[in-house]
């Protein structure tokens, strides 16, 4: 009979329920349906008795369903009695009797209000981010000036270490990436310009594009992804482990000890990488022009000489340190905004890269207008 969890029989206006088998998690679904049937059948009677003597196993699921049955019956105005409950389950049934007395609070869900709230939060967050970045620039300026007045406090070793990490070790990947970009631009240019018979203008396009825009922008994006994220992760984990607080209590400014050397390293490294990257892109373009477009290196170089001026080169190089400042400031803001949890570290690291790339492109647009206005 152990396959029947609950037997129902009605005699003289009383409903007798005989429980048997294992009242456990495995069969809880089945048991719940039986309990619901019992509740329906009890509508016609005034008293219900539940005999638990035949139950072989009982766990929280079974105990709760028994409690739910009794509770529902009593709310419906029936008298319900539990009989023959083995002593070893008394404690568990008592526990079940005490639980679920208050309804579960549910967060109310309103799609329109939620969407509006999210929009509002995003706008507030954006404004806050901008203010934080501006504040970071201000604080960095103060720290830099203070350090300039007392040069012996500058953390030279740390700066060199970061310069090695973000500058020197980035050279291979930057070289490869910009070389390929140079190749691709030249190939595309040759392919499309050929239809108009103006293949030689490829050199002008590549030269101006690479030196003014692509060189610095691609390198900066790469550095944001490679080093900006690393800065945020490092500063964030230091913040999480209270290392920044430890520095403060010892009388050091985390900005001076941790942030300034990193930002200085970036400001030095990014122009150098931009130069290396631009040269690699021009080299790649020259190679493609020679092998794919049949333009000899001599012609390429003399065209390049005519096509570009020192201004084009200067525009790219002037922009580079500003890009570095943006990456450094955003990475530091995000790193120091990390809260206690590891999820927060991940979120801020992602945000650091996204925000610095976005701001760099915005800044690049401003520079484009500025240089156009001054005729450079």
């Amino acid at each position, binding site marked *: 009979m152990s396959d029947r969890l609950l037997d129902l029989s009605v005699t003289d206006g009383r409903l007798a329920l005989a429980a048997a088998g294992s009242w456990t998690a495995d069969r*809880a679904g089945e048991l719940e349906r039986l309990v619901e049937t019992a509740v329906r059948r009890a509508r016609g009677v005034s008293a219900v008795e539940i005999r638990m003597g035949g139950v072989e196993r009982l766990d929280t699921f079974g105990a*709760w369903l028994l409690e739910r049955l009794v509770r529902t019956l009593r709310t419906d105005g029936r008298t319900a009695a539990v009989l023959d409950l083995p002593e070893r389950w008394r404690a568990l049934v008592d526990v079940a009797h005490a639980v679920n007395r208050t309804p579960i*609070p549910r967060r109310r869900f309103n799609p329109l209000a939620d969407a509006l709230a999210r929009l509002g939060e995003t706008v507030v967050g954006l404004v806050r981010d901008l203010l934080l970045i501006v504040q970071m620039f201000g604080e960095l300026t103060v720290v830099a000036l203070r350090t300039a007045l007392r040069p012996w406090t500058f953390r030279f070793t740390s700066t060199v270490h970061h310069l090695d990490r973000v500058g020197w070790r980035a050279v291979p990947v930057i070289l490869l990436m910009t070389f390929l970009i140079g190749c691709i631009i030249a190939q595309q240019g040759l392919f499309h310009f050929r239809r108009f018979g103006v293949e030689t203008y490829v050199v002008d396009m590549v030269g101006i594009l690479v030196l003014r825009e692509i060189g610095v922008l691609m390198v900066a994006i790469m550095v944001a992804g490679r080093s900006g994220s690393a800065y945020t992760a490092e500063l964030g984990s230091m913040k999480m482990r209270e290392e920044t607080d430890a520095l403060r209590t010892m009388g050091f400014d985390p900005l001076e000890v941790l942030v300034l050397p990193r930002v200085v390293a970036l400001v030095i490294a990014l122009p150098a990488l931009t130069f290396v990257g631009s040269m690699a892109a021009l080299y790649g373009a020259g190679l493609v022009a020679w092998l794919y477009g049949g333009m000899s290196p001599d012609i390429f170089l003399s065209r390049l000489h005519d096509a570009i001026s020192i201004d084009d080169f200067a525009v790219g190089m002037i922009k580079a340190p500003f890009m570095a400042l943006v990456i450094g400031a955003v990475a530091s803001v995000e790193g120091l905004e990390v809260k206690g949890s590891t999820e927060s570290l991940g979120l801020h690291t992602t945000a650091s890269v996204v925000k610095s790339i976005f701001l760099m492109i915005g800044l690049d647009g401003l520079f484009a207008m500025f240089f156009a206005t001054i005729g450079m």
Partner: protein
Amino acid sequence: MLAPGNELVIGVRDLVSGFGDTTVLDGVSLDVTRGEILGCVGASGIGKSVLLRTIVGLLPRRSGRITVFGEDPARLGARARRALERRWGVLFQQGALFSSLTALQNVQFPMREHLSLSRRLMDEVAVAKLEMVGLDASVCDKIPSELSGGMIKRVALARALALDPEIVFLDEPTAGLDPIGAAEFDTLIKTLQQTLGLTVFMVTHDLDSLHAVCDRIAVLADRRVITVGPMSAMLASDHPWIRSYFRGVRSRVGEPVRVA
């Protein structure tokens, strides 16, 4: 070593385990019987957690035998192993709650995956579990980052108990709790063990827990279990490490040494 009539629930024989080149456990043998609370102690880094993780199959073993309910988890097929895993629950040291789910969803997760129940029943049982570990329904829709350390441990215990397991493994259940919270947690473990008839394997450093709840204590030293027995046996032991652990400055038995 076993009292007659006691059913063996976990049996470990000559277990060798470790990472890479280091052998952490070398020849560990240990028995856990049904319905007891076994505390496992040992110096930091001695491999208590490694033992726990090896038993539940998170770490591979090099040699030796482990049986849980008479079966070797490593030799079972996927289906039988899942069935076996349903019969135990693990409370990790940091709780290991899923950070994107609410407390209620965390407790419901094992039910959702293993059983087919109505949503109403899952809600009710999950709330019941949360109330059984001393929380109230107001934590239900909080996510782990909104909970305090003690609450996280309780929710994690409720999750470990979600499927009404027969064994629970506790990895330092009272670490990081204040003495009052730790004492409450000890009482909770004892109560649940009695109510639900659990077998508890717990790794701990907490002398108070060992006094309050453990039926037997296993001491891990020199890569093996050097002794197993009740608290009285530990206090009577002459082994230098056991002496300094159980009768040292921080214990309140033996010769109490006052620390100003």
